[in-house]
C-alpha cells in the first residue's frame, strides 16, 4: 500500500546522533538524580503520612498537647480524686484547673487533680472522638464535665458547626466514618483524610509549621493553642483590661458568629446525636458525667430567642432523664464585665466561675461518693 506524502511523513524515521561517553555520563547522572528525587519524594510523603497516622502529635496537635499534659497530671497525682472538663475555648479560658485543684484539695482534705481539656472550635463530635482516644490511652477521670455549646447542637445545612474546623486531616482513619455518621460532609472529610496520608507535607503543613515556626501562620491556622496553657490545661486569658468599646465590639463579633444559628436553633443535628452517644459511652464506661452550660453575658444570652432556649432546655432535660446526667446551668453566673466578648471569660471571670463550680458541683459530687 502506498501512503500519501503527508501520511508518510508520520512514519518517517528520525535522525539520531550517537551519544559520546561524556554525554552518556551526563545522562546517567540526570537519570539517577530524577529517579532518586522521585523515589525520595514518594518515601518522604509516605513516611510522614505513616507517622501522622500513628502519632496525633503531627495530625492533631491541639489534642496531642492536651493529652500529654493530662498524662503528666495523672502521673503527678496518682489515685487522687480527679475532674476533667471537655469543652471548647469557653472551657479553655474559663475552667481554671489549677485553682480548682487547690480548692478541691482543700475541700476534700487531701490531694486532687483537675484538668482543662478545652479545645477551641470543638463540639460534641470532637468531644466524643477525644474521649474515645483518652479511654484508649487509659485515662479515666473521677468526674467528667462536658461543656455544651448550644450552637454546636444545631442542624445546619453543611453539617455540625464543628465540621468547619474539625477537618479530615485531624482524624485517624477509624474516626473518619464515625464523624461522617454525625453529618460531617462525607466526601470532603474523606478527601481531607486521604490527602493527609498521600500528600501529608501539604495537608499537614499548618500543624507542622505551627510547631516549627508559628509566627509564620495567621492566627486562625495556628495549632499552637497549647503554648498559652498552664500544665493543668488552662489557657490564661491574654486580655487583662477591656474597654467598654472593645467589649461591645467583641460581643458584636460573637453575635455575627452565632446569632444566625441561634435565631432558629433546633438541637437535632449530628452534634446533638453525638452528645447523646457521648453520654451513652460514659454510662457504659461508668464515668460520672455532668453537662455544663457555660457562663454567658446578658447580651450574649439575648441572642437566644425564647423558642430556642425552650428547645435547648427540653433537649438537655431529655438527656438528663435518659442518661442521668445532671445539668450545671452556669449561663447566668457572671456579669458582662467578666467576658471579652460575652462568652469567653477574663481572668476574674474564670476565677469566679471556677470557685462556684467547685463549691456547687465538684465538691458535692466527691463528698457524696
Amino acid at each position, binding site marked *: 500500500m502506498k501512503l500519501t506524502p503527508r501520511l508518510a511523513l508520520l512514519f518517517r524515521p528520525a535522525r539520531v546522533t550517537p551519544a559520546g561517553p561524556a554525554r552518556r555520563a551526563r545522562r546517567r547522572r*540526570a537519570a539517577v538524580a*530524577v529517579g532518586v528525587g*522521585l523515589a525520595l519524594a514518594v518515601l518522604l510523603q509516605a513516611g510522614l503520612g505513616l507517622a501522622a497516622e500513628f502519632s496525633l502529635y503531627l495530625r492533631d496537635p491541639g489534642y496531642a498537647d492536651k493529652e500529654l499534659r493530662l498524662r503528666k497530671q495523672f502521673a503527678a497525682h496518682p489515685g487522687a480524686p480527679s475532674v476533667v472538663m471537655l469543652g471548647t475555648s469557653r472551657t479553655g479560658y474559663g475552667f481554671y484547673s489549677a485553682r480548682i485543684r487547690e480548692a478541691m484539695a482543700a475541700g476534700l482534705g487531701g490531694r486532687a487533680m483537675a484538668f482543662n481539656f478545652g479545645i477551641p472550635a470543638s463540639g460534641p463530635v470532637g468531644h466524643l472522638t477525644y474521649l474515645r482516644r483518652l479511654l484508649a490511652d487509659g485515662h479515666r477521670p473521677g468526674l467528667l464535665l462536658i461543656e455544651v455549646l448550644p450552637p454546636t447542637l444545631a442542624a445546619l445545612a453543611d453539617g455540625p458547626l464543628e465540621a468547619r474546623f474539625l477537618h479530615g486531616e485531624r482524624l485517624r482513619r477509624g474516626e473518619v466514618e464515625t464523624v461522617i455518621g454525625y453529618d460531617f460532609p462525607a466526601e470532603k472529610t474523606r478527601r481531607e483524610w486521604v490527602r493527609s496520608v498521600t500528600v501529608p507535607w501539604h495537608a499537614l503543613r499548618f500543624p507542622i*509549621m505551627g510547631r516549627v515556626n508559628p509566627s509564620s501562620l495567621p492566627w486562625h491556622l495556628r495549632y499552637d493553642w497549647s503554648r498559652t496553657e498552664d500544665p493543668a490545661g488552662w489557657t490564661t486569658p491574654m486580655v487583662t483590661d477591656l474597654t467598654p468599646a472593645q467589649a461591645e465590639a467583641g460581643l458584636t463579633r460573637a453575635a455575627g458568629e452565632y446569632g444566625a444559628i441561634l435565631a432558629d436553633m433546633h438541637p437535632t443535628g449530628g452534634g446533638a446525636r453525638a452528645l447523646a452517644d457521648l453520654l451513652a459511652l460514659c454510662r457504659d464506661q461508668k464515668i460520672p458525667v455532668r453537662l455544663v452550660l457555660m457562663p454567658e453575658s446578658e447580651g450574649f444570652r439575648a441572642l437566644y430567642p425564647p423558642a430556642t432556649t425552650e428547645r435547648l432546655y427540653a433537649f438537655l432535660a431529655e438527656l438528663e432523664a435518659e442518661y442521668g446526667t445532671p445539668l450545671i446551668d452556669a449561663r447566668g453566673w457572671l456579669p458582662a464585665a467578666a467576658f471579652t466578648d460575652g462568652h469567653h471569660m477574663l481572668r476574674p471571670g474564670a476565677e469566679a466561675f471556677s470557685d462556684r463550680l467547685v463549691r456547687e458541683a465538684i465538691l458535692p459530687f466527691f463528698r457524696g461518693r
Partner: protein
Amino acid sequence: MPLSLFASADAPPKTDWPYFQKLAELLPEPFFHTSNFLLFFLAVLAVYWTIPRRWQMARIWVLVVASFHFYAAWSAELAFLVTATTLADYLFGRLMDATDRQKVRRAVMVTSIGMNLSILCYFKYRGFFLNELHDLLVAAGRDPGYARLDMKAIALFVPFGISFYTFEAISYAVDVYRRKIKAETSLPRFLLFILFLPHLVSGPIVRAGDFLTQTRRPKRWNWVRVQVGVQLLLMGAFKKMAIADRMAVFCDPIFHEPDRYNTGAVWMAVLAYSIRIYCDFSGYSDMAVGLAHLLGYKLTNNFNMPYLSKNVGEFWRRWHISLSSWLRDYLFIPLGGSRGSNLATCRNLMITMTLGGLWHGAAWSFVLWGVAHGLLLVTHRQFAAFAKTRPALDAALQTTVGTGFRILLTFFSVSLCWVLFQPDLFPNPQKPDLILNGFERALAMYKQMFGLHMGLPLPLHNRSLWYTAGFVLICHLLVTRGAWQWVYDRLPAPVLGAGYAACLCAAMLLAPDSGSSFIYFQF
C-alpha cells in the same frame, strides 16, 4: 458611576456540553502546580512518549489535542475561539506566502493584526473604553443610560492568556510579511505554536521562528532534558507556593485597604509585593519552561534576576524578557527606536512603555505604571549621557559601592512603580469601604507611605517576611557569583535527587492557606 458598569464576568460562561462539563470537573483550574493538572500532564506525557519517535506528527497532534482540552476544561467556547483565530492566522500566513504582490501581502498582514487586536480589545478593553465613554458623555450632560442595562447579562470574561497569544499571532504575521520566516504549511504545527499548553495561558511569548523549527526536530527521550524540566518545575512551584503565595498574605490585605495600616506596614507590603510579583510570574514561567522541556521543547527564558539590575534599562532586559523583546522588536524599533534624535528616542520609549502598561491591564493604573517606567527609562537615558561626560562620576558609579547603590536605587524605583500595578476592583458588598479604582488605591498607598500614619500592623509577624526576603537575596547572590553552578556541577546525583525531593516537600510545607491565582493570568 459604578465601576462595574462594564465589568468583566467573574467566571467563564458555563458550557452546555456534558463532555466539557466533565472535563471542567477533572481540571478545575488551569494552574500548573495543582495536583489535577499534574495528573493530566502525566497522562499527556505518558501518551506522548509512548508514541514512537518516527511518528512526530502524531505526537504533535497529541499535544494539540491536549492543549485544546487544557483550555477547554476552563472554557470550551473560548477554546474554540482561540482555535478559530489560530486557524485564521494560519490561513493569513499561507495567503501572504502565496503572493509576491507587496500590497496584497501588506493588506493580509494588516487584516491579521486587525483581527487579533479587535478580539483582544473586544474582550479585554471593551469595558474600559465604554466606561470612559460613559464618563465623558455623562460629563457632557448626555447620559446614555447604560446604567439601566443588565450588566451581568452583557459581562464578558477575559480569556486567559489572550494578550499573550495575540502577541504571538501578531509577531508571526509581521515576520511572515517581512519574510523573516516562511509561512507554516503544516496546520498541526501552527496550531501547536499558538496552543502549546505550557505557554498558552501566560507566556512566555514565543516567536514562530524559534518554536516552529523545534516542531520539525524529532524528539527523543533525553534524561538531561527531563532533569532540567523537573528542576524548573520544582523551582517554579517553590517560588509560587512557598514565596509568592506567602508574600500575598502580607501584601494583599494592605494593597486592598491601605488606609487601615500604619506607614511601616505599608512599606513592608510594597517589599512583599515586589518579591511576590517576581516569584509569582517567574515561578509560572519556570514551570512553563520546565513542562516544555519535559515534552522536548525549549521556551525562551523569561527572567534573569531582574532585581539585581543596575538601571531600569537593564531591568527591562531581565524582566519578562519575552514581552520586552517583543515590544522592542515590534513597537519600539518600528517607531524609530533610538536611531533618531534624543527627543524622538524618548518619545518612542514613552509610547512603547505606555502601550506596554496598557497591555498589562485595562485600567488607568496600568497605563500610569507604563508611563512611570517610560519616565524612568528616559531619566536613566539622560543621566547615563550626563555621567558619560563626567569620568569621575562615572567611575564612582562603577565601583562596588556605586554598583550596590545603583542596584538598590533601581529596586527602590521599580518597587515604587509596583504600587501602581493594581487592577480596578469590583464592588464587594461585604467590604463597602474598599477603594475600587486601582489608581486611587495606589494614591492611598503613597499617602500612607510618605506620611507618618498610625494603623494596623502587618497581617503577620514580619519575621517571616524578612526571612523570605533574605532567602531570595541569598539565592540571587549565589547564582550571580556562580557559586550555585559550581556546587551543582559537583553534587553527586543522589544528593541532587534528594534536593529535588526536599524542594518539593518544602514547597508543599510552606504554602499558605489558600493559593492565589497567578497575577499575570489576568493579562
